[in-house]
């Protein structure tokens, strides 16, 4: 039973076709990495899953429940608003540019949504936030503003913030691309721990080392299509699609 499944998802920006017939399914506890050259539509795909972009056509299933069905930019079916919101919150998102709330401390960043969206008691939310901060190695920084944190610390805080909503699946949109090289490791470390703890993850990344070590499955996207899909050992050592071969040669 897939946690997220897409059927023939297409996305056009005007004439420009960014995604074409994407069929992807992510099983519970699976870690899937999406790789591919820039402009392949990886980020757009991730963003259209949690509705930061509206797809042009296709179906999105969450928990095997039809979540959204659109054809030709018209919504054919969408879950009713309460269910829509609930299913949307099963996805947590980590952005390339962190997007932390600069006017709130680390702790306040984490509890903002649980307190205001899930209506959790503040004390309970704070307690959980401190646990999350400890999990990402930021216990000492609870009362710091994001501007006082390094890039790596900010991204770890963003991960904790997304986890605070207790999502079933975490979407990572190039989480290390905006970081200085020496800070990448700490973020990948946290993501690896998260994967080991059984979180379902869909990661758009350029970190091939991480993809090879942590991912259960790799999806190679190119020109808005899924060009190849397979286990990392298979895909990295023996790519079948010539485009995959070319891409891997150019970066390794």
């Amino acid at each position, binding site marked *: 039973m897939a946690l997220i499944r897409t059927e023939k998802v297409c996305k056009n920006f005007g004439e420009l076709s960014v995604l074409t017939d994407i069929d992807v399914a992510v099983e519970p506890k699976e870690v899937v990495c999406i790789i591919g050259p820039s402009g392949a539509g990886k980020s757009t795909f991730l963003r259209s899953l949690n509705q930061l972009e509206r797809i042009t056509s296709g179906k999105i299933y969450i928990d095997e429940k039809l979540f959204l069905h659109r054809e030709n930019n018209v919504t054919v079916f969408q879950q009713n608003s309460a269910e829509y919101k609930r299913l*949307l919150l099963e996805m947590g998102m980590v952005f390339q540019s962190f997007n932390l*709330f600069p006017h709130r401390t680390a702790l306040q960043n984490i509890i903002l949504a649980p307190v205001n969206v899930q209506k959790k008691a503040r004390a309970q939310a704070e307690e959980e936030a401190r646990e999350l901060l400890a999990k990402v190695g930021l216990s*000492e920084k609870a009362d710091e503003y994001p501007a006082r944190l390094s890039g790596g610390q900010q991204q770890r805080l963003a991960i904790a913030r997304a986890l605070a*909503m207790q999502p079933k699946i975490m979407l990572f949109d190039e989480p290390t691309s905006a970081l200085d090289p020496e800070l990448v490791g700490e973020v990948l470390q946290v993501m690896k721990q998260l994967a080991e703890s059984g979180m379902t993850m869909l990661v758009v990344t350029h970190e091939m080392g991480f993809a090879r070590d942590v991912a259960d499955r790799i999806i190679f996207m190119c020109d808005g299509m899924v060009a190849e899909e397979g286990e990392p050992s298979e895909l990295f050592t023996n790519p079948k699609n010539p485009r995959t071969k070319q891409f891997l040669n150019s970066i390794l």
Partner: protein
Amino acid sequence: MADNLETESGSKNKPKAKTAAEPAAKARRRRLALYIVLGLLALAVLILALTRPSGEKVVGEISQPLIDKAGSNYSQQYYNYLAFSIARGKNVRSAESDTHIGFAGRTFAVNAGAAAVAANVLCWLPALINGTRITISLTVTAVCAGVFLSVFLALGKISRRKLLSRICSGYIFFFRGTPLLMQLFFIYYGLPQISPALAINNKFLAAFVTFTLNSAAYCAEIIRAAIQSIDKGQFEASRALGMSYGQTMRLVVIPQSIRRLIPPVANEFIMVLKDASLVSIIALTDLTFQTRNISSSSASALVYVPAMIIYLIITAIFTYIFNRMEKRFSIYT
């Protein structure tokens, strides 16, 4: 690994703290110097206040010939300011006058020169201060109410609801596109002609309503620009966390835009402070009205100098307050 980096960045912070301590010590010394200066000033004021001449003594100095010659056409005023006393006798018909200043227990006759100007300025002060009170209260209340109103106007203008957005845009277009003076005339003189129920008979209230409506339009543009300058990522992060549009605005966007709002709102405040001089035309006794009044009754245009200085002082004080506010709101950057 994460923990390693944690301690490393912790130790990096230490030298920073040392350098931060130095300006702190400097600031403490500066504050001490300020207290000493203020203390000395207070002491000087106290001494001057204790040695101040009584009003009657200064009045007594006005020359008897003037009083005799003027007879029943004689008027007398006197003012006391700490160590200063001013007494002025005037022959109303011939406008011949005799002015005496008392200072620190001594009395001087001043009918010419710089001392006479100083005496005049001191005589004008009570009226100018009354006017200042109205100018400040009009400006402060109108800008506060205007900013409050403008938040809704700005949110309305960027709203996706077409009708609401059009109405708000139209409002802003109207109030920014027509002269403030005409708006004031229309609200004070025009509304009663449309319907007596709309009449605002209190001049201050009419001015308050006009200035509020007007500065709301200007502030709405400021707030709209501040909201739209917030990074798109903030909206996306809020949405990904399940916040509604209202929650995003209230919890994330507006708090962040406040700091960016302060400099242009301060600018708007100072503009309104000066535009408030227009209310003198509907005979509201603000600072400008009082100044013009004195200028025509005493036939001295010199009164504009102290009046402008008062405007400068108000501007300086509020600029200082806004700067402090800006600093307070920038703690997180």
